[in-house]
């Protein structure tokens, strides 16, 4: 019901937030798949590093800033568990993605080391799952 009576002024930030959330999920999946398969095709490390820097992080920014803008306008969910999950996944993403971007760059520069790209695979895989949990929580709003 909330979706249909939402004031127009909330729509643009919500659009940016949802678009950012969906694209950061897809870009994270692309980085994860690339990192896993770079064991067989090492040149994929460069694709992963570029993806993290030029796709995952900008999409994360769109999601996080759009969400903050929406939250500043709408009182819906204030203090709720589902909004808390969204903030945790969003804010944890900043740290995880910075670490992943650094490790992605290291994996390109130090081609003889395998652990940096393996760590990128673990981080992006875990963050992908966290994003799906946040999507479920923020859409289903369990407990509200």
């Amino acid at each position: 019901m909330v979706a249909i009576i939402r004031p127009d002024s909330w729509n643009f930030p919500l659009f940016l937030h949802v678009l950012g959330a969906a694209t950061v999920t897809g870009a994270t999946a692309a980085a994860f798949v690339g990192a896993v398969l770079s064991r067989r095709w090492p040149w994929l490390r460069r694709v992963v590093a570029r993806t993290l820097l030029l796709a995952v992080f900008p999409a994360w920014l769109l999601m996080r800033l759009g969400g903050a803008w929406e939250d500043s306008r709408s009182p819906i969910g204030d203090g709720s568990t589902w909004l808390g999950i969204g903030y945790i996944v969003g804010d944890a993403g900043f740290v995880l993605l910075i670490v992943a971007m650094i490790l992605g760059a290291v994996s390109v520069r130090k081609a003889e080391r395998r652990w940096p790209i393996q760590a990128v695979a673990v981080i992006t895989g875990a963050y992908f799952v966290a994003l799906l949990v946040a999507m479920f929580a923020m859409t289903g709003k369990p407990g509200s």
Partner: protein
Amino acid sequence: MDRYHWLLVFHMAGAFMVLGGAMMAGIFNIAALRRERPSEIVVLFRLTRYAVTSILAGMVVTLAFGIWLVADVDYVKWSNSWVIVALILWFVANALGGIGGGRDKRTRQLAEQLAAQGDQPSAELRTRLRDPVSLALSWGSGLAVVAILALMIWKPGA
């Protein structure tokens, strides 16, 4: 959670599969434009197939749960202009993506052929990768999906 929210979760999951898959396909598509060796382009095209699977499954899920939502809630009608336009755009996105995908398949087959015949950079493959019609079809399909998302949020005419 009530039935409305469960339907919304599955509808949104489908939207994530479509938009996320489109993002993933775009990433591998752009990466393929930057490579020269046919064998590397083949790998990126094969990765794109994961994205296409996600898009196709997501399209079915969004449509199925979208129809269920319209039938289930009182305040959305089949006659709402945003519902009608969203359905038209759903078919447009599928048609553009399907035609673009067919052209990409022929490019992948050429890359596979070249990879098996010495794996040397090819001007023909480069031209096919940068074919403006194929790119317009694929990116146009993505834009149609973003337009559907905008309609779902603004619901003009509701």
